């Protein structure tokens, strides 16, 4: 953990690790030809994160290994019509898309920067957990990025918030 020049603000991971994470993100991902993810907003440090709206569906992954924390993902269904019979498939598609995306990022992180981290199986957090994770009082380094999920000619905004609580490593490059 470093103390930044602003003594009121703690950082939990070094700038090198932040850069490594940014360099490990991907521009796009084909989800078995059923959907596509396209990067909208690259990964950046975030201090304030807006709360979950009632139109957002959440999914969460625990992060372990060299980096520890929690990753929150939301898909925005505002103004989208999803038939009741399709909701389960849609949620499963979103969850697996985030799983595949995060898997690729962490694989890149390991391959290019020798930072080995893993995600848990996904789970749906309750509102209290979400509030806590998004709160500025929750002690973590927050980074966020956004993607568009394109499926069946519809586009959905997805935002991903990384809450990194600590790292066990000093930077080493392959």
């Amino acid at each position, binding site marked *: 953990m470093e103390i930044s020049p602003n003594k009121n603000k703690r950082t939990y991971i070094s700038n090198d690790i932040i850069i490594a994470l940014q360099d490990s993100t991907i521009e796009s*991902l*084909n*989800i*078995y030809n*059923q959907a596509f993810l396209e990067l909208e907003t690259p990964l950046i440090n975030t201090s304030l994160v807006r709360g979950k709206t009632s139109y957002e569906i959440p999914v969460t992954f625990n992060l372990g290994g060299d980096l520890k924390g929690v990753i929150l993902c939301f898909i925005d269904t505002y103004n989208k019509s999803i038939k009741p019979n399709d909701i*389960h*498939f849609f949620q*499963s*598609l979103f*969850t*697996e898309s985030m*799983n*595949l995306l*995060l*898997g*690729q990022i*962490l*694989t890149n992180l*390991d*391959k290019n920067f020798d930072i*080995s981290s*893993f*995600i*848990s*199986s996904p*789970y749906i957090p309750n509102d209290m957990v979400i509030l806590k994770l998004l709160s500025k009082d929750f002690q973590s380094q927050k980074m966020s990025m956004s993607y568009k999920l394109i499926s069946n000619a519809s586009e959905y905004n997805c935002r991903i918030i990384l809450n990194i609580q600590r790292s066990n490593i000093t930077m080493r490059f392959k």
Partner: protein
Amino acid sequence: MDADKRFQILLVDDSDFTRTHISQMLDSTPYQVVAEARNATEATNILQDRSVHLAIVDVVMPEVSGIELANYISENFPETAVIMISSLGQESIVIDSISAGASDFIQKPFSKESLITAVNKVFTTFKEA
């Protein structure tokens, strides 16, 4: 191949989407998905009731990991081959998978061709045995 004795596969993945998609990929191949499981407990219950030639197992699953399941299958159902799949492609995961007795490892998302190539290899080994 005798239709009653097609190469029989068990899918083990907590993602409904992934299980559905793998089943669709294997449609109209000589390989038959005969059962699906969402977790290791369901998988072991299925294997206790029926034998399968191959289990395709996700590495990351709730409670009991795919690696632990692969170990269990190797020890208790040695006639069942295992292919591990995962969104994570770290070398350590591949090594752990093979050490647990898996015949192959495929990183998700994979193409139909990659999947069938991996299953073909296992099937060929099975035929030669």
